[in-house]
Each structure stands twice: as structure tokens, then as C-alpha cells.
């Protein structure tokens, strides 16, 4: 990322949300900021409205499950500033017991379906979402299939067993 813009980005975050920034990193030169989940929407709308930065495009919104960590779920937001052509990744950690975070639909209308997909596959509950129900999987599915505690393979197949496949 452009060094000047990166300095502006980090300075504005530190001066406005100093205590809510957990970590700043740049893997593969992609600025990644981990924040506290309570301030996430404030931080993203601050970046949206910032006079110089203008992060006004939500490229992606998803989550990952890290079963060995204390706070197992990590929600990831990719923002793009079309004016400056720079990107930033914002992350927040949630505990698996209360996987709740505020919805981003107030800032980006396009977050609606992405949040539904993240809820569907990983069970993240976006508080305040207008229509938080499954979008990709069948409605009567009982699990959130991308969480690591659930097996990837369908459990109904009888033709696969260890004697034949050596697994």
C-alpha cells in the first residue's frame, strides 16, 4: 500500500480508536487490522466517511473457524477505496459461545447477503440484520457446515468403508 495513505490510515485509527485496535499486521503487504468486535461498525463507518481515505466498497465479508484458539471465530471484512485504489482487511474475534456482532448493513447495503452467507455457513449472528436466515444451504439444515466440528463428507453414504478405501 501507498506509504503515505497507510500512515494516514493508521494515524486516524490510533487517534480515534486507540484502545480498540488489537493488532496491526501486513501479511503479503496487505494491511490487516484486528479490532475489538464492539467497535467494528464504528471503525468501518469512520473509514467510509474519512475525507481522504474513502473506503466505500465492501469487497468481501466472511469468517473463519479456528478451533484451537480461545476466541474461535474470526470475522473478516475486506474494504476497498476506489478513489485511492487501496485495500484494507479488518478482522474481529468472537467467542463460539456468543458468536454475535453488529450488522454492517447500515453502512453497506451489500453486506446483507454476505452476512446471511456467513451466518449460514459459520453461525455468526449479525445483530440488527433485517433478514438473518439461511441463503445457500437447505432451510432445514441443523448445522453450520463450515465449522470444524462438523464433518465435511455427507454421512449417508454406505458404499465407502475402510476395508475398501484404506482410510
Amino acid at each position, binding site marked *: 500500500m501507498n506509504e503515505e495513505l497507510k500512515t494516514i490510515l493508521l494515524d486516524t485509527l490510533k487517534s480515534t480508536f486507540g484502545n480498540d485496535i488489537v493488532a496491526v499486521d501486513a501479511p503479503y503487504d496487505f494491511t490487516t487490522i484486528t479490532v475489538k468486535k464492539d467497535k467494528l461498525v464504528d471503525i468501518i463507518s469512520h473509514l467510509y466517511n474519512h475525507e481522504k481515505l474513502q473506503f466505500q466498497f465492501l469487497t468481501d465479508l466472511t469468517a473463519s473457524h479456528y478451533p484451537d484458539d480461545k476466541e474461535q471465530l474470526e470475522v473478516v471484512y475486506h474494504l476497498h477505496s476506489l478513489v485511492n485504489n487501496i485495500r484494507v482487511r479488518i478482522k474481529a474475534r468472537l467467542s463460539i459461545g456468543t458468536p454475535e456482532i453488529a450488522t454492517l448493513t447500515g453502512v453497506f447495503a451489500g453486506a446483507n447477503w454476505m452476512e446471511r452467507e456467513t451466518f449460514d455457513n459459520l453461525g455468526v449472528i449479525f445483530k440488527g440484520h433485517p433478514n438473518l436466515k439461511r441463503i445457500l*444451504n437447505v432451510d432445514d439444515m441443523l448445522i453450520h457446515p463450515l465449522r470444524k466440528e462438523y464433518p465435511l463428507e455427507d454421512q*449417508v453414504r454406505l458404499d465407502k468403508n475402510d476395508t475398501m478405501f484404506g482410510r
Partner: protein
Amino acid sequence: MSTIKTAESPNGIEGPGFFATSLDAAVGLARKNSLWPLPFATSCCGIEFMATMASTYDLGRFGAERLSFSPRQADLLMVMGTISKKMGPVLRQVYEQMAEPKWVLSMGACASTGGIFDTYSVLQGIDRIIPVDVYIPGCPPRPEQVLDGILKIQELVQSESIRRRDTPEYKAMLQEYGME
């Protein structure tokens, strides 16, 4: 001298000005050579089916030229491609809308067993929701295999008694799938 081959006539008694055979045989002959398939193509098997319909392989040679895109007019449901669990009820509704007699052909590994997609979102074979008459193996099968599958369907169609759909066995089979 014409090279056009006509279908062989069934066994019967022939004389000057008349031909007597069983109704089963006559109806079977007519049905066999005028199948209206409904292509339910969802992925790469559907592409292979397009080749089967085109001039090189030409499914029209077997009387199945006219594809029906309405289940209400179709005799043969050809399921070609991966069927996700979410599409399962749709496929079932299409099958239920078809009028009797109806046949189902499951083309390729995905439609028959789920194939490589052994995963939470994919139906592990369409025979979990609708009865299937002929399975075509392959990933995807070659057009020759599709033609072979159609010929197998034709054998079933020709030899089927016109009362088969009224038998208790057939009704019991439908009951297993929760259909009337």
C-alpha cells in the same frame, strides 16, 4: 431403393388386409419410438447431452428428437449433473408433475451417487428422492453411453405391460418414496 429402416413389427397374426397382435405390443412399439425426454441438465453431463442431441450422435434417430421442456408432456426424465440438496425438492416436483407412464434416466456419477461431491450440500444420488430406471456411469459419460442408456430405456418401454402402473408392486415402490 430406400435405406430407411422401420421398426420391426411385433409378433402377431398376419393375413390379407389385417394384422392382429396384443395391445401391449402395439402400444409398447409406439411408446418406445416416440419418447419425449425432459432434460434436467445441471452441469457438465448436460454439455455431453448437447453433443448427444447434435448431428454426430443424433438422438433423433431413436425417436427422441423432440425434447419436452414441460414435465407435463414428457415421458422420460433425464437427470444430468450434480443435484444439490436444495434442488432436491424441485427435482421431485418435476417428477411428480409428469404424467404416467414415466421413466427416469440418471446420467453420470453425480446424479447417480453424488460422485466426487461427497459433501454436506449435495444429494448423494437422485434415487434417494425419486425412482430411477436406468443409470449411466461415467464422469461425464460419452455420448455413446447416453445412447446406450436410451436404448436400455427403450427396452423397458417396449416390454412394459400397459397395466404395470396399476400393480401393487408399483404402488408400493411409489409409497417408499412417499408418493401416491
